């Protein structure tokens, strides 16, 4: 099977859950299921200088991973202004002759790229995963209002409150354009039922959706933290970038409250502060200073994750928005750590309150502090919840689930099922036979 993955960023340039999952899935399909093809990631001048005379460049040493320089992107309308650049990619796609095109994000490539991809490979099964709410929410795809409240979904009045400077027609125009462009996609993948339901509520057809969970690479679980005699399960850890939406400040507020209440505990923050505003960093520094039992441990790489996890009893996911299907929850479960998270959205769907974690009110330091206090103090709770944790899907599970979806999409298109391991019989350049006329599609 020949696959083309298209997304807005390569995880080697800037880490992110969507990117990491997409690359992991691509490599699993390639290395364990005989697929071959191309991982095509967008990038901008901020990360990679554009090469003269081409939009393409290598991402690293891999022969099947490429970057496309895509500056001039309109994040509101999801439009890439470099139309000639987009068009120049079509021959590359056509030459690849993919059986499956899997789009992982409309950012940078933009909506017109869907048409370009469809046109360049008309027989391919076209699958798109919606890793967040970008397609229905122009506010960075978070369904979080300008005042920081959870948003149930797009509505003319709601969207205008978030974008008071925009005329109302902009929202209609955006919604029409997005829905129209995505009509060319055969199957839509939602990593959570919650996300699917938000899209269906926004007018997308439920029939095209499949819910396929995210996955994390298989790993040897970190052992439970050895407890000294009489010790408590009172060490908490937050994983992920330090920013407002990930709820860093909420977690620090909860820790400060526990300290004031005299609850012995520790809170470790694992994650970097890249791309954050000075204003937020000032708030973060102040909040950290006000929480004597919290510690910022800084950014980490994938190989350090298990070691850092080993020091923690609980993983806290204090995100202030719905979230979708956070990989950090799967990571926690991989290592048998119960999760304390907001009781809403994709988080609540993944973490079962009282079974493998605890739910807390979203964006509420006091509520989170109460849940953490219970976790630290209630005897036997950690052992019960830890035992309730089910191992998360690994990349091979995800690959198998996706292969099933691809086959289904191809069946629905009426095309023949692609051969497994179709070894490419390439001839020297220039001597390749070309059919006199293309066979009727």
């Amino acid at each position, binding site marked *: 099977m020949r696959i083309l993955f298209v997304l807005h960023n390569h995880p080697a340039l800037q880490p992110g859950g969507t990117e990491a999952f997409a690359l992991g899935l691509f490599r699993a399909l390639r290395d364990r299921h005989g697929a071959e093809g191309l991982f095509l990631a967008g990038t901008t001048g901020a990360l990679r200088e554009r*090469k*003269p*005379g*081409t*939009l*393409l*460049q*290598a*991402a*690293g*040493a*891999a*022969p*099947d*991973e*490429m970057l496309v320089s895509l500056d001039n992107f309109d994040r509101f309308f999801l439009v890439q202004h470099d139309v000639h650049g987009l068009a120049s990619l079509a*021959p590359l796609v056509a*030459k690849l002759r993919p059986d499956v095109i899997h789009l992982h994000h409309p950012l940078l490539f933009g909506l017109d790229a869907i048409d370009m991809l469809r046109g360049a490979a008309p027989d391919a099964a076209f699958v798109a995963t919606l890793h967040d709410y970008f397609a229905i929410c122009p506010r960075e795809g978070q369904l979080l209002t300008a005042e920081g409240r959870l948003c149930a979904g797009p509505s003319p009045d709601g969207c205008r409150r978030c974008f008071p400077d925009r005329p109302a027609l902009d929202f209609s125009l955006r919604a029409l354009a997005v829905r129209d462009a995505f009509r060319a996609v055969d199957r839509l993948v939602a990593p959570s039922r919650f996300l699917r339901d938000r899209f269906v509520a926004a007018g997308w057809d439920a029939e095209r959706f499949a819910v396929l969970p995210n996955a994390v690479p298989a790993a040897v679980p970190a052992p439970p933290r050895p407890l000294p005699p009489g010790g408590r399960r009172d060490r908490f850890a937050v994983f992920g970038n330090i920013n407002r939406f990930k709820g860093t400040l909420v977690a620090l507020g909860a820790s400060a409250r526990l300290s004031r209440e005299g609850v012995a505990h520790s809170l470790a923050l694992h994650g970097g502060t890249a791309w954050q505003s000075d204003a937020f960093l000032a708030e973060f520094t102040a909040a950290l200073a006000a929480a004597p039992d919290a510690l910022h441990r800084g950014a980490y790489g994938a190989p350090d994750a298990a070691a850092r996890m080993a020091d923690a009893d609980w993983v806290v996911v204090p995100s202030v928005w719905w979230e979708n299907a956070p990989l950090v929850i799967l990571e926690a479960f991989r290592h048998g750590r119960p999760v304390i998270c907001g009781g809403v959205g994709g988080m609540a769907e993944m973490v079962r309150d009282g079974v493998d974690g605890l739910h807390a009110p979203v964006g509420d330091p006091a509520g989170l502090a109460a849940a953490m206090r219970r976790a630290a103090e209630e005897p036997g709770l950690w052992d019960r919840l830890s035992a309730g944790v089910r191992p998360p899907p690994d990349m091979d599970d995800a690959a198998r689930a996706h292969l099933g979806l691809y086959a289904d999409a191809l069946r629905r298109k009426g095309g023949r099922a692609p051969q497994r391991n179709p070894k*490419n019989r*390439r001839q*020297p*350049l*220039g001597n*390749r036979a*070309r059919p006199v006329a293309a066979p009727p599609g």
Partner: protein
Amino acid sequence: MRRTKAEAAPGKPGAAAFPGAAVGLQPVEHRLVRLPSGVVLLELNCAVPAEGAGGAALLVDGAPLPPPSALLSLSRPGAPSRAILAVRDSAELLRPGAACVLTLGGAPAAAFPLDPPVPAETLTLDREAGDHERLLRFLVGTCAQALRAADDPDLAALCHSLARAAAGEGAGGDAVPLSHPGARLSAWAVPLAGGGSGAWRLLSRGAVRRIAPPEGGVLLLDKPPVAGAVLLPPAPAAPLAFQTAVRGAASLPGLATLAREALRPDGSGPGAAAGRRVLPALLRRARTDARCAALLREAQLMEPARPQRLNDPAKPVGGALELAVSDHGGGLFLCGWLRDPLALVDGLELRGPGGEAQPIPPAALHRVARPDLAERFARAAFGGAGLAPGFLAHLPAADHPGVAQWRLGVRLLSGASLDLSAPPGLLPPETARDLVLRSAHPDALRPGLLDACIAPAAERLHAAVMRGWTGEPDAVEFGAAQGRAPRVSVVVPLYRTLRFLRFQIAAFARDPGVRGAADLVFVLDSPEQRHEVEPLLRGLSALHGGLGLRLAVMPGNRGYAAACNAGAALARADTLLFLNSDVLPAAPGWLPPLLEPLRRDRALAAIGPKLLFEDGSVQHAGMVFRQDAAGEWLNDHRCKGFPRSHPDAARGGPVPAVTGAALCVRRAAFEAAGGFDTGYVIGDFEDSDLCLKLRAAGGEIAYEPASELFHFERQSVSAHEGHSRTLAGAYNRRRHHRRWDAAMAALMARFPEGA
């Protein structure tokens, strides 16, 4: 007067005898003048009819005189009849005592033995009024031509005597000096009355010289007239004497001063009036006389008129001629703008310094947008400048060698006209070429504008630039020359960017596969950097154990193609490898795999390696040609931007072409193809052009992925300010397209998936 061929009547018995004695014919009084050159003038005191059935002929010792000859009849009523026969008598048949018989209409009319010659001046004596001039015109016109005696100094001296005698007869008048008569170039006023059409001649004691006719009563002489020289206008005007002794003649200004004062915008200066009088003659003469052209150009360039433009928003018409430059090939390139919201303008014309105008055909004007004017006229009462107020034009035959500054004439419907000076238009060809290539924004380029306007002007100017390429590269050698015959000559053109040079030479020096096999030639195309490059190469050679390398310094910036060709001419090996200075080997051992296919496959003319961007992405894996939406061919690189190990980039073999950044070619094939074409401006398309020439000669081109080098692309081309934001790229591309359209189409049919 008529010319006769002296021929014997054919088939007449006894023609060889001396018939005069037998028949008892009368003798004829005559005078014979023999010039040292063999020209003989025989004056016969008898009537010879001007026209007749058989004409006149002279038999000498019974035989007709061999041609050529000419006859002048001076017969007229009431005067003694005379005739003058002119012959070129190289065989000296007309010696004293020779028996002559004059036949008229084939019948003998007179017979006489020939008298001894008399001095030439004798012919000026004893003449009727007007006969001096008739004889003179016969001698300088008919006779000089028929006897091919135009350069005969003795004939000239005789003519001069006749002319002085004729001028003394007083009918003609004088040529009066307008400029200093002793200067090399001088202007003379001549009477206009009676001047017919025909040749003007200047007669002096030693020579008869045809000279250019006067223009508007002004005659130009390109050397001072010698004392006693006489001017002979075409008939019926009488000869003119030169009035060199007129009062004040010695203090007259020279022609250059007159021209300058006449062309001075304010018309000031004592010589301005006389200057305006001589200007038409100067301009006409300038078309054929380089000195007059130079004089006029200097007059304009030393005191140029201030360029004018009409850009008052309150006026209903505006315009300017911002560029009117010679294309150095007989044409002009124009750039300007015209704002005419009320359609008051009837037409445009080009005016030279003499005031004469040539219309600018509306079809030759290519209208273009001028965003720079929009703001100025945005709120003008009569309306803005319009969408395309600018114009560009190439007038292929409008140039005048004597004009260095043109003016735009804007003719209004009323018949009135505006007159706007352009800046001086005589520029060095390279400067003019670059102006032409900047005259429109690349985005505004339409095929018609490029093909009909920009390209013809740029092509002529670039040809003029190339004509100016004189001098040879100066070569210096460092270190030890390659002991055994080198396998390859590596030619590296250097232009400005030197930052990679140290790394490149070090990489060559450390790689035994290069050091033992290659002859290294660096060609500096920015000779102003010699003080920097020569010591650097000398030092690097010493540092790397006497590494043998040569530096050729070009005599000027000649561009990539000329620099490569100069390097190739110095090469010592049978294989050439052109490498950009920003190409660095990825690892030692890159050279043998590149040379091996050439050794193995005789059909291969050229081969190129894999080139990588600085991050390892593929920069070049062979070149392909692609057609854009308009059908125009573009050069593209296979696999550009692909990962280094992408299977497509790992596949070697035939490719349509390879880049010049690293191009290995058999020297014999390179030379047979004439090397790189220098007709592209600044540097573009020479490599694909060479590959297509090699292919046209039957050679194959290949790509070799086993040879890997990094290419820090465009570091040198973008350093050339003439290249960015100009039409040079479009010009080169179009030139390449027109040459190779069919060849590229046929070639790409062979490489359907080449991209």
